[in-house]
């Protein structure tokens, strides 16, 4: 039998340790979600429930149902919109180009670094003027606008790798700007779309600040805000809070499990010589 090198062993021990550390909160969240109030008080969070029950999960879902639906609606809409617009921006900034396109890109990049807090007041004012305050549409618009800089950056970097000769070939073949985008660029964009979509989904889904500022307590309230309110309304029901957290975390976890492999995959094989 061959023994692995000591350096390897140390590495694995460290990795397992950190994985354990990172998974601990999730673990306690799961165990607590299945505990009745009695178990919450008489067991440590890490321990398994003494008499498991789905009660907290059902209670939490009843409260969170509407907000979760809201979150799904605006997260998916804003995700799709910001990815599509970012992709079109990236295409135009790399493959069409125009006088000043680098400057335009610079402005997009600056957009990435504007902190949420800095735009909060003007944002709320603008949204109320537009009549979108406390509306899902307001959240869609805000998150789309806020997502565009980062998706633009991502798509621009990816499209930089698509050989220009591919675009030139399509032009001589007779395809116009939009046809080239639809028939050549878009089908080659699976990878950046997955990356951008996962990124956008998680950051929009996890957003709290815009949700609180634009739709707190309303019909349009997002899940992140509703989750925070679980504590305020029903005091110290740890199990319900944890169950709510679990519901809230589930979509993001599922997405990472399902799409993780795409994040690793290259898609440009065979485009050019060599």
């Amino acid at each position: 039998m061959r023994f692995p090198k000591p350096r390897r062993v140390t590495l694995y021990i460290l990795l397992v340790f950190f994985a354990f550390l990172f998974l601990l909160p999730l673990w306690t969240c799961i165990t607590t979600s299945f505990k009745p109030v009695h178990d919450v008080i008489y067991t440590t969070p890490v321990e398994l429930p003494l008499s498991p029950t789905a009660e907290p999960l059902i209670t939490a879902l009843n409260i969170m149902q509407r907000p979760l639906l809201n979150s799904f609606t605006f997260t998916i809409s804003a995700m799709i919109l910001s990815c599509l617009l970012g992709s079109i921006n990236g295409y135009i900034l790399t493959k069409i180009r125009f006088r000043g396109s680098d400057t335009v890109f610079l402005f997009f990049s600056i957009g990435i670094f504007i902190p949420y807090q800095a735009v909060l007041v003007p944002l709320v004012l603008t949204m109320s003027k537009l009549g979108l305050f406390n509306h899902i549409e307001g959240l869609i618009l805000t998150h789309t606008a806020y997502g565009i800089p980062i998706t633009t950056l991502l798509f621009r970097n990816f499209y930089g790798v698509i050989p220009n000769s591919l675009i030139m070939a399509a032009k001589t073949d007779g395809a116009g700007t939009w046809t080239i985008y639809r028939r050549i660029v878009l089908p080659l964009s699976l990878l950046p779309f997955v990356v951008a979509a996962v990124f956008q989904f998680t950051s929009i889904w996890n957003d709290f600040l815009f949700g609180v500022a634009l739709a707190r307590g309303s019909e349009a309230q997002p899940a992140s805000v509703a989750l925070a309110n679980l504590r305020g309304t029903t005091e110290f029901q740890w199990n319900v809070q944890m169950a709510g957290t679990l519901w809230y975390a589930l979509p993001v976890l599922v997405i990472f499990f399902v799409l993780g492999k795409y994040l690793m995959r290259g898609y440009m094989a065979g485009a050019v010589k060599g």
Partner: protein
Amino acid sequence: MVSVAIINLTKTYGTTAAIKDLNLEIKDGEFFIFLGPSGCGKTTTLLCIAGLLKPDKGEVWLGNELVTSSERDVYVTPQKREVAMMFQDYAIYPHMTVFNNIAFPLEVRGEDKSEIVKRVTATANLLGLSQLLDRKPRQLSGGQRQRVALGRAIVRKPKVFLLDEPLANLDAKLRVKTRTDLKKLQRELGVTTVYVTHDQVEAMTMADRIMVQRDGVTEQIGTPEELYNHPANLFVAGFIGSPEMNFTDCTLIKEGARLWLDAREFKTPVPTQVAPKLESYVGEDLIMGIRPEDLYERKSVKGSTQKNALRMTVDIIEPVGPYLLLHLRKGRCSLVARVKHTTARVGQEVDIEMDPSKMHIFDKKTAKAII
């Protein structure tokens, strides 16, 4: 099917001038080849013709239509030029099958489904791609990808073909075959073709006319025979022909009424019919050029050198097909001669004679051909 005219075309990238003041007229239906070493501006010129690149200066005409002019602010988009281009890196669409790649230009033009199938099938047959129509590019070899790119260019009937090194990646046998097929196809279609290569054999065998380019400058334009027999300068003389032309530094001297080229190791008389052209160069440094096949071995006579012959030592004997290449040396002068057979062995001396009418003489200062 149109002629192509290029007037004063200039394109600069940053500080490197890719094309300098190019003037060129390609005739309707002509097979025209751009020949030159890597980086001399061949691809750049094609891109300007296709409209994929806007030049800094100059005009491009397709037939009677002015398609590019920076001075008159004319620019017709590549989509409207009816020019088909095959790219050096193939640029086949990686997400489409071979069939869809070849069909793409027809689909974009809104051709009928049945017409598309018919023409793609015909093109695939011509290029030996029929078995591969359902494959994706990443499942193809380099040579097969190249043929797909070629197929996409020839599937429609454009006014001009622009082919950027279309055969570079094929193996020797397939290259020779495709060369002939392509030439035949071009004859049949009669489409004006601009073809880029840095392979001079390819250029010599396929072209109606060749333009030799170097560093963005045109060195010579002419038929293969003209370039071979009357190279305009040292660059063309050295670039065309394999093995390369022999060059020897020499001085023109006058003895009595007779002009002689004095190369130190040997002296050779200037043929009387070309003497008048050389009269003004007496005393100047020249370069004499002679092709390996214009050197002959003469049976050496023991003891004495034959008249007009040069006694040289054989360094290497290289057999190439039906010929032998003799690498010869005398002092600082070395020559390559191409002969059918020889009795000489390596290390022996042979008498070499040349055909004076086949001699090329260049001005050393300007590198231009005098005769």
